[in-house]
């Protein structure tokens, strides 16, 4: 590209550097953690101030759907980890299959989430709706945080799903190989982060009985 | 230059002098040393530099000394501050309300004033209540300031040591007329204060509705002369036909008693076209029905 002529430094920023991409990914995950971290602080404070209301509202959520979704995410975490193993061993076909399984699981997660949300919205619990506006303050906060946090999380699921799809496509095109699989690894890291956040969201919203 | 008229002033000023003293000493000292070096080791005088990489001894000294000094500063800051939050028992309690853009004060006997009057040499505790956004009650002469936070009870206290009239300013940005949110505190001697207490609070000739409008700061947003401030002017408003938006639907209404009452109790139910929702807060808990009808009576007179 632009760097066609002249001195070539050994440590050029235009070299391929897998370690750097991985490090970049980790750093990016840190910012994601703190992005959710801000919301967790809000959650903590409002829970401290509205203890009873939070307890009461959490009964509105369906523990079983939450549990199923947890399982779905955990399994998807495993499949993507396996797809890395597969590509490391040079088995791209298997890797693609595992990636697509992960995408499938992410869709399953979203479908379940959709049913959960729509039943809440049906009850008028979405911020701005009439029923919501008349809720006691603490409960309204609970549902706002519920929608904001699971919503932001779902957004991450969608982005992650698309990213994994891209990885599968590029594996198919032979751009991801057993010699060059940072992309798969990074998609995996991102996906695990989404899982990590859910691991905390789940008890905080569904299990405070 | 600075008046100090409360028991805190001394402690606060003392910690200021301690910190400023140490600071000015270092500021001048370091600046002089710096300029001296620039002069003494100028390349004309000192053509060859010596590479001195550092000195552990010096590093330790200039870590330890500032550590010590900042702890001293912290200590005096804390000592000067502690009395500010410990209210003595038996303090006179006054509630201060802040709203865009006016302070008002409520005394235990129920009288409402827009400036504070306190006796000298007696602790006074002010409970701070905000009706809309953040404000901050600031009395420079007393070295005292504390925010009025809506939905949260905050307080400050002081004991005045000097007679006179001192400024009260709003120190937390609260919107358009923040810089006009002023008031004052008058410190009287015991006798003067008791006399002030004894005078009946509303012997004025004013229309009681107007008094209410003034007391509740309605007039900071609503003019009486037809000009637009934040809300619609009260002039000629009664009986007028105007367009309001209720729950997103525009409709035409004629302003009558019921509408005014609703506008005061639920200002956001019908929002006048061209004005903003949310700025005016509900006065349902503040004004009784009787007071509202006094206000309405007064508004009717503004033709």
């Amino acid at each position: 590209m632009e760097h066609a002529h002249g001195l070539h430094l050994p440590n050029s920023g235009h070299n391929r550097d897998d370690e750097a991409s991985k490090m970049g990914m980790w750093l990016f995950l840190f910012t994601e953690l703190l992005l959710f971290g801000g919301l967790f602080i809000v959650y903590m404070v409002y829970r401290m101030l509205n203890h009873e209301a939070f307890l009461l509202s959490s009964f509105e959520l369906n523990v079983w759907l939450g549990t199923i979704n947890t399982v779905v995410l955990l399994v998807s975490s495993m499949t993507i980890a396996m797809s890395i193993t597969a590509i490391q061993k040079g088995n791209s076909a298997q890797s693609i299959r595992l990636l697509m399984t992960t995408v499938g699981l992410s869709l399953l997660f979203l479908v379940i989430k959709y049913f959960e949300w729509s039943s809440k919205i049906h009850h008028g619990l979405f911020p701005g709706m009439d029923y919501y506006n008349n809720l006691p303050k603490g409960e309204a906060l609970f549902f706002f945080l519920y929608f904001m946090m699971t919503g932001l999380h779902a957004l991450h699921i969608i982005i992650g799903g698309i990213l994994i799809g891209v990885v599968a496509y590029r594996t198919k095109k032979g751009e991801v190989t057993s010699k060059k699989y940072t992309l798969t690894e990074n998609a995996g890291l991102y996906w695990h982060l989404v899982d990590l956040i859910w691991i905390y969201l789940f008890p905080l919203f569904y299990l405070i009985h | 230059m600075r008046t100090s008229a409360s028991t805190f002033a001394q402690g606060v000023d003392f910690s200021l002098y301690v910190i400023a003293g140490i600071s000015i000493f270092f500021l001048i000292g370091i600046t002089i040393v710096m300029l001296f070096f620039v002069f003494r080791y100028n390349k004309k005088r000192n053509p060859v530099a010596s590479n001195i990489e550092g000195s552990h001894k010096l590093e330790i000294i200039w870590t330890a000394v500032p550590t010590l000094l900042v702890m001293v500063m912290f200590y005096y800051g804390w000592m000067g501050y502690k009395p500010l939050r410990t209210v003595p028992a038996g303090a006179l309690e006054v509630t201060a309300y802040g709203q865009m853009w006016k302070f008002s004060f409520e005394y235990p006997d129920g009288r409402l004033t827009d400036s504070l009057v306190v006796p000298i040499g007696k602790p006074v505790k002010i409970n701070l209540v905000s009706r809309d956004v953040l404000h901050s009650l600031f009395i420079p002469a007393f070295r005292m300031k504390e925010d009025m936070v809506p939905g949260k009870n905050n307080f400050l206290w002081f004991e005045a040591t000097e007679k006179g009239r001192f400024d009260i300013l709003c120190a937390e940005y609260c919107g358009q007329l923040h810089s006009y949110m002023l008031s004052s505190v008058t410190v009287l001697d015991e006798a003067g204060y008791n006399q002030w207490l004894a005078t009946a609070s509303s012997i004025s000739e004013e229309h009681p509705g107007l008094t209410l409008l003034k007391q509740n700061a309605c007039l900071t947003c609503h003019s009486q002369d037809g000009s637009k401030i934040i809300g619609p002017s009260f002039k000629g408003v009664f009986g007028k036909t105007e367009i309001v938006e209720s729950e997103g639907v525009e409709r035409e209404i004629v302003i009558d008693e019921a509408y005014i009452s609703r506008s005061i109790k639920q200002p956001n139910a019908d929002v006048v076209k061209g004005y903003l929702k949310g700025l005016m807060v509900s006065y349902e808990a503040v004004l009784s029905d009787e007071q509202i009808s006094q206000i309405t009576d007064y508004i009717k007179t503004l033709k």
Partner: protein
Amino acid sequence: MKQNKDHSEEGTAHISSFRDHWSTLVTLLLLTIVTVVISVFGANLAALSVATALLIATVKVIVVAYYFMHLKYEKKIYTWLILLVVVLFAAFTILTALEYYNR
């Protein structure tokens, strides 16, 4: 420093076996079941149930990070950096809570 060429094959990357992944998953599922059981049937534990739920969540997170995210086989610096982030976040919450507890 060791950045003299392309870094594609720097070190030999550890390859986890499918079996490792399966056992990690089983651990995580077991932990999930424990949390759900505690909170659904152990309602009388009250505040404790939140604490245990969060504790178990933390264990799960460590498992995911360690095995799925390969932290176990990465350079130590990543572990330190993660600890840094955790310490920071803990400090944020503690300092904020300090205020609300003493309200």
